[in-house]
């Protein structure tokens, strides 16, 4: 403490006030999300109980025979702790060890998928079976204390076939991220390395496009997409497609809507890569494309990953475009949840809608956990330099 100058030292009231404010903010930020997660695991009576403790401990759920004992909780927490620990230490070592040189990224994809599958298998199938045998033996330690049921998740994912919406979301977001990064990196590089007037005006126009409300654009697409078979028939002949309801058309639309933001962000990342790097490659006889492919691409990944995260968020979170341009058969997850509004008559329906909402949020939660640093750097890159 003594190395802090006296004038910089803070009075107790200020320190306390700042800490209290921060604690309040964290509570405020996490509470709604935490609460819907708790609600989704309870029977409807508990989920909308008057007392918050009833919601957390779930007496009605417990009475119905669904609950966790102290043993379950302890074992579960230990398993989760080691899962995270192994994922951070053991998994990266093994991936680097086993993957052939130059294809580490493929090793990562296979490793992560295998690890996730193993975890799901162990945590949701092996563990409950083992604990089911152990609980009755242990007496008081084996009695359920925390009501918890996964029945709503079952009815959402299995009975209501939410997995189809999940697959559609996967298709749309995957497509948007891939295409928008491919197109955006090229444009961002071109814009960062060209000091011409045209580059400046392109960026300004992109800024104007970024401000446009999406409904304005959709008002332009919708009539054309619905009648596209007739409009395209003179060009494409009999098998001209109706673009309305096509995930590919939605991918193209979302990529374009996202393009202004993507090129601004990637441009600011490319400006941070020193110009001397590609000038050296050019002196050695590379063309611009060769310099881009062999010199810039190996060092551009941090920026590309960050921009990809934001493209992912835009496509994954979108409601307006997907709900208007896709029909009921290939709806993505976020608009599909609106379908629950119309059915939401009983409290069971409400808790099912909550479970669907939590299912949509869970991947985002993982995303922040893994990529927190990239998200923060992406947010500040646009502001501090642009």
């Amino acid at each position, binding site marked *: 403490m003594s190395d802090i100058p006296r004038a910089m030292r803070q009075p107790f009231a200020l320190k306390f006030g700042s800490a209290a404010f921060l604690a309040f903010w964290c509570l405020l930020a996490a509470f709604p*999300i935490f609460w819907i997660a708790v609600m989704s695991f309870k029977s409807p009576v508990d989920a909308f109980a008057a007392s918050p403790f009833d919601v957390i401990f779930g007496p009605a759920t417990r009475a119905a025979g669904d609950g966790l004992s102290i043993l379950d909780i302890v074992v579960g927490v230990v398993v989760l702790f080691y899962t995270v620990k192994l994922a951070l230490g053991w998994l990266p070592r093994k991936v680097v060890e086993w993957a052939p040189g130059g294809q580490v990224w493929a090793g990562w994809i296979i490793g992560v998928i295998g690890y996730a599958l193993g975890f799901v298998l162990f945590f949701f199938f092996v563990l409950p079976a083992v604990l089911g045998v152990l609980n009755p033996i242990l007496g008081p330690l084996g009695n359920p204390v925390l009501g918890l049921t996964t029945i709503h998740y079952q009815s959402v994912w299995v009975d209501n076939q939410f997995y189809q919406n999940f697959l559609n979301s996967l298709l749309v977001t995957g497509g948007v991220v891939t295409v928008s990064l491919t197109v955006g990196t090229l444009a961002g590089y071109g814009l960062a390395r060209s000091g*011409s007037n045209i580059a400046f005006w392109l960026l300004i126009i992109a800024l104007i496009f970024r401000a*446009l409300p999406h409904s304005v654009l959709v*008002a332009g697409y919708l009539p054309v997409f619905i009648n596209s078979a007739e409009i395209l028939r003179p060009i494409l002949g009999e098998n001209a497609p109706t673009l309305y309801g096509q995930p590919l058309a939605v991918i193209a639309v979302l990529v374009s809507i996202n393009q202004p933001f993507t090129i601004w962000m990637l441009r600011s990342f490319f400006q941070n890569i020193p110009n001397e790097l590609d000038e050296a490659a050019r002196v050695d006889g590379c063309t611009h494309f060769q310099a881009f492919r062999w010199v810039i691409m190996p060092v551009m990944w941090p920026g590309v990953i960050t921009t990809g995260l934001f493209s992912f968020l835009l496509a994954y979170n979108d409601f307006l475009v997907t709900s208007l341009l896709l029909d009921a058969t290939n709806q993505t997850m976020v608009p599909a949840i609106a379908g629950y509004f119309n059915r939401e008559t009983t409290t069971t329906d409400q808790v099912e809608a909550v479970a669907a909402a939590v299912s949509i949020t869970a991947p985002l939660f993982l995303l922040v956990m893994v990529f927190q640093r990239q998200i923060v750097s992406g947010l500040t890159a646009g502001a501090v330099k642009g």
Partner: protein
Amino acid sequence: MKFKTFIWFVGPSLFLMLLFIAAPLVSVFLDSFRITQPVVQTVETETCSAGFLQQTCTTTINTVPVIDEETGRVVTTTEWVGWLSYERVLEPRRAWDAIRSFDYNGLMQIDFWAALRFTVMFTLVTLPLVIGVGLAIALAVNNAAKSLRGPIIFVSLLPFIITPVIGSLSIYWLFVGDGILTRGLEAWLDRDIAMFAQAWTIELLMLFYRVWHVAPFAFVIFYAGLQTVNQDTLESAIIDGASRWDRLRYVIIPHLMPLIVFIALIHLMDSYRVFDEIVGFRAQAYVISLQWLTFDFLAADDAGNRAFSRASASAMLTMIGIVILLIPLLRRTWRDHKGGSH
């Protein structure tokens, strides 16, 4: 870089933006002046039923759409109608009557004006709140122990990253009829509370949601800005006897000013497009926004019809607001460009 190479790099992106952003804008502009509707004809049908002495006959006149003999589709015509779609959206005569007789509720009966009022109010109220809350969190985190900062940033990012519709739903479920916070408030105030039965409580929740959702974004940017505050300037301010408040007012805030302008601009653009909250809070019966108005015209009604021309007109009217918002920004960028600082 030569112009030709530049075009090769930028081409695909430019093509996409022209095809999917510029072209739709032109088509929306044109569509707002014309109406496509099915051709109808009136058909006179006489139905007779047996009666005593003579038949009872009734003649009914029905309007039915003309159907193309070959394709089996409804025949449509497109005609230029001038400002008709705009008049249907704006309802200028009714609005003017309401204004002349100082009938505020009358004006708010017209969807467009109600949407405009809410959108502008929403944008202007959330702006200072987002900047204020974001700055307060950034200062508090900067004041906290280093080991706590990572977890705090993680928790703070959650409201920002969550799907807007889901985020507003999560708050909706806290305040719905038998939600936990409604129950708490009812027990505390000892009266019945229905948060979603009148407009002003819904608006309050929407304002809260938006600040909750965007403040983390402002916080992260301000926090990054705080790391680059010049320590020498701060120290000389202390030597000169500046109090804590003076240092904040005269050193830190001027340093953060470009960031405040940046956040204000992004926030103005984004909150002018307010839409997901209306879906999440199911507010459409009480409160609507400009973007929701267009969405509503575009969505198929019970008969499967979509009001494209009115949607185009309301989209163009929404655009006017964006243009007004962007003019100061563009003028500034143009000045910077001319000044050669670029």
